[in-house]
């Protein structure tokens, strides 16, 4: 007879937590272990920094907690819908109500490192409450718990909303625009904040960060106790509402078949052109760009970032970025297209089994990328330069744009075949239309690599522009064409010789006898160091080193957020040199340490 139908909510939740921990234990191998340790280390630093804020600069606590909330909201969007260890689909046949399954899944969602780290960060609330006496500590503790649950729930509801409603190009593009805007706000959001008078003086911002769910704890601690109690009760009510919403979304998700983000279509598709070689491959690729919601979302992210970043600086009446929106868009679009072969999965076998198709495929992908990104980047560049009225920008825009477009078209196919990040085959992906199933950390480092490599291809053009504006334009066109042609040639040669290895990397995972250095084999302190270096080394090298170097060389007066330019003149050059050295040192460490420690190839097991 059937048993187990009467499993109580507590028991169900307990099983969920055990299953989640078992999944985590089993996946703690190689790179994912490194990622976890690095993530937890970074998270802990931030958590204790938050407590430090509560002690030292309490006025900024609500703002700091709002940043944590943003992490929960945008984290899952950045990494393609969140890492759902416990998928609701696994439990769709359990004889239990959606509400009960949602509650149990929520319990499972807490059995991970992120909520634990966040709870430590939220201990800043009782620490802050200490200023208001023992009652403040108690309220702070209660608020820490409700705030944590609220943050995790908001994150889950957003993932569920994306999973359910990103079914069309418009919604995918909307998610991309929100993401791009968020990245732009993260990097340059200080500009409008400064323009509006700073976070500590403007009363509206103090109210805003307390009205956000992350700020309710602070509000409760500061309020008289009846109001504090009311705020806490309201917090619990919000949790109940979010749980109900999540349960409803989950039960809809498991009965609606989403297949890898395919937008709806009308009418019979336009026939393929009667051609061959690279042109037919480009036609295939253009259809993929138009029919894949992941690609549409990534493009929207790239272009919205490129448009919003200069707009934010306009708040300070800084126009210097406006002409370069098209250049930023080109680099960002290249960064989001770096895993072209990984995204298509094992479909590569058809290219490999068709005699001579490797060259056509690489060239076709380059053409399609140029056709998708090129016109928009050109329009953005021309419009931006015209509108800004900065005539000195013309040679830079006209010289760098062809260099970057060609460099991008070359770098993306080269990296796609040399640094492929395997994902899940498109037809096997789960209920989340914006996730490729690839290792997000590896994909992100690939994107960083593009962000460094593509601008590097434009360095000759930049140098030539300094000598003579028109020489720069010729150099830009020339290096762009050379990069697209040459790097593409290396890419298809490599695909011809190593395509099978790429295919089997996607089918069976990394080859066990591979002797290339991986961070997974390093001692833990070096793993963390290497990953952190990769993540932040660009900061001293580019924005704090090379950019102020260029600005100081040309006497551009805008100090912006460049530390060196804010210092007394005597310290400016030493600071710039120090920053560049620091960035190079970090990159050197991140690249050389794995090589050195791995040079006697260690015995690895599968």
């Amino acid at each position, binding site marked *: 007879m059937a048993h187990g139908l009467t499993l109580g909510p507590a028991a169900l939740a307990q099983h969920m937590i055990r299953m989640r921990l078992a999944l985590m234990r089993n996946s703690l191998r190689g790179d994912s272990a490194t990622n976890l340790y690095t993530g937890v280390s970074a998270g802990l630093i931030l958590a204790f920094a938050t407590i430090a804020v509560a002690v030292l600069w309490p006025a900024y606590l609500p703002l700091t907690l709002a940043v944590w909330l943003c992490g929960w909201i945008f984290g899952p969007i950045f990494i393609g819908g969140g890492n759902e260890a416990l998928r609701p689909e696994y439990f769709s046949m359990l004889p239990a109500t959606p509400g009960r399954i949602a509650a149990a899944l929520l319990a499972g969602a807490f059995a991970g490192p992120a909520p634990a780290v966040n709870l430590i960060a939220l201990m800043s609330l009782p620490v802050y409450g200490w200023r208001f006496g023992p009652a403040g500590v108690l309220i702070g503790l209660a608020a820490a718990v409700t705030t944590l649950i609220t943050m995790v729930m908001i994150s889950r509801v957003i993932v569920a909303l994306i999973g359910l409603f990103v079914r069309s190009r418009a919604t995918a593009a909307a998610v991309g625009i929100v993401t791009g805007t968020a990245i732009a706000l993260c990097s340059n959001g200080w500009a409008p904040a400064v323009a509006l008078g700073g976070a500590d003086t403007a009363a509206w911002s103090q109210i805003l960060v307390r009205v956000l769910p992350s700020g309710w704890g602070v509000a409760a601690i500061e309020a008289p106790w009846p109001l504090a109690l009311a705020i806490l009760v309201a917090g619990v009510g919000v949790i109940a509402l979010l749980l109900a919403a999540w349960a409803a979304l989950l039960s809809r998700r498991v009965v609606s078949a989403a297949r890898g983000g395919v937008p709806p279509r009308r009418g019979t*598709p336009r026939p393929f052109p009667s051609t061959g070689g690279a042109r037919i491959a480009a036609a*295939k690729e253009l*259809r993929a760009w138009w029919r894949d919601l992941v690609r549409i979302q990534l493009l929207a992210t790239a272009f919205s970032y490129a448009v919003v970043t200069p707009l934010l600086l306009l708040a300070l009446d800084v126009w210097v970025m406006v002409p370069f929106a098209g250049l930023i868009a080109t680099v960002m679009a290249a960064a989001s297209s770096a895993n072209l072969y990984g995204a298509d999965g094992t*479909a590569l076998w058809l290219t490999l*089994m*068709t*005699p001579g198709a490797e060259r056509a495929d690489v060239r076709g992908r380059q053409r399609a990328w140029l056709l998708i990104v090129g016109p928009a980047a050109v329009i953005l560049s021309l419009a931006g330069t015209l509108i800004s009225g900065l005539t000195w920008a013309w040679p830079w825009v006209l010289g760098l744009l062809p260099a970057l477009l060609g460099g991008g078209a070359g770098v993306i196919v080269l990296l796609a075949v040399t640094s492929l990040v395997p994902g899940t085959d498109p037809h096997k992906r789960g209920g989340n239309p914006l996730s490729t199933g690839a290792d997000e950390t590896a994909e992100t480092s690939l994107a960083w690599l593009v962000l460094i490599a593509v601008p590097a291809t434009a360095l000759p053009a930049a140098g030539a522009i300094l000598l003579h504006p028109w020489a720069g334009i010729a150099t830009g066109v020339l290096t762009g064409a050379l990069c697209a042609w040459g790097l593409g040639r290396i890419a298809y040669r490599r695909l011809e010789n190593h395509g*099978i290895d790429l295919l*089997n990397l996607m089918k069976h995972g990394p080859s066990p006898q591979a002797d290339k250095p991986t961070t997974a084999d390093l001692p833990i302190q070096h793993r963390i160091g290497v990953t952190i270096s990769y993540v932040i080394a660009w900061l001293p090298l580019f924005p704090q080193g090379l950019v102020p170097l260029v600005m100081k060389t040309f006497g551009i007066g805008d100090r912006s957020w460049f530390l060196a330019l804010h210092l007394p003149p005597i310290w400016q050059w030493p600071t710039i040199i120090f920053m560049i050295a620091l960035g190079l040192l970090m990159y050197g460490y991140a690249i050389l340490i794995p090589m050195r420690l791995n040079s006697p190839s260690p015995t690895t097991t599968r």
Partner: protein
Amino acid sequence: MPTHQEPALRTIGLRKAFGDHVAVDDIDLTVPAGSFYGLVGPNGAGKTTTLAMAVGLLRPDAGSAEIFGVDVWRDTVRAKGLIGVLPDGNAMPERLTGREVLTYLGLLRGLPPAVVAERTEELLQILELDAAERTLVIEYSTGMRKKIGLAVALLHAPRLLVLDEPFEAVDPVSAATIKTILRRFADSGGSVIISSHVMALVEQLCDHVGVISDGRVVAAGPLDDVRGAVTLEDAFVELVGARTGGTEGLAWLTA
């Protein structure tokens, strides 16, 4: 020069290990030209790995493979021109419709556009994929994916078809169609290799069989030689040394 006297496929000492697990251990197979060859074996025996190495989709640790005398790993381009392959579980250009996939691959192979259009139309009709004109491959059912994969394998009229589990998840009507197509192909001189664990099907279609177990060939040759006086299924169970279970335990289910 490859001729019909050369075997359609010959593998010599193929070997592949994944970490410590040896998936394929020294496999020698000879598929005579014009034969309909069935490769059978239990789950995990190494059928898929063997076929992938034989057609050039997986680099063997040792050994070689020849198609009509052309070395798959030395003269890759020529070998690829001779075969049509249906691998198990690989992705397709997922964002294209069935017609677009065939058109794209035909043109990429350099077939004249008129020929591509004609063959595409016929293949879609015969495999009953023409109704799903607006459906992208990513939205296909498992059976439809098999059928479009088979169409891709047939499109350039190869001399050897290598099909991994071609009948898995295919409905009986489509399976009958596919069988008829394959028989016609074999009768007109083409060579076919299929892998399967449905013995009745292999018995019905194939004239040669190879039995693989634990990465090794345990029997190979004309069907009648391998099965002897019993059915292929009985011979297979005997050969792989398996014991059919299912009679013990599960008292709670039958109470």
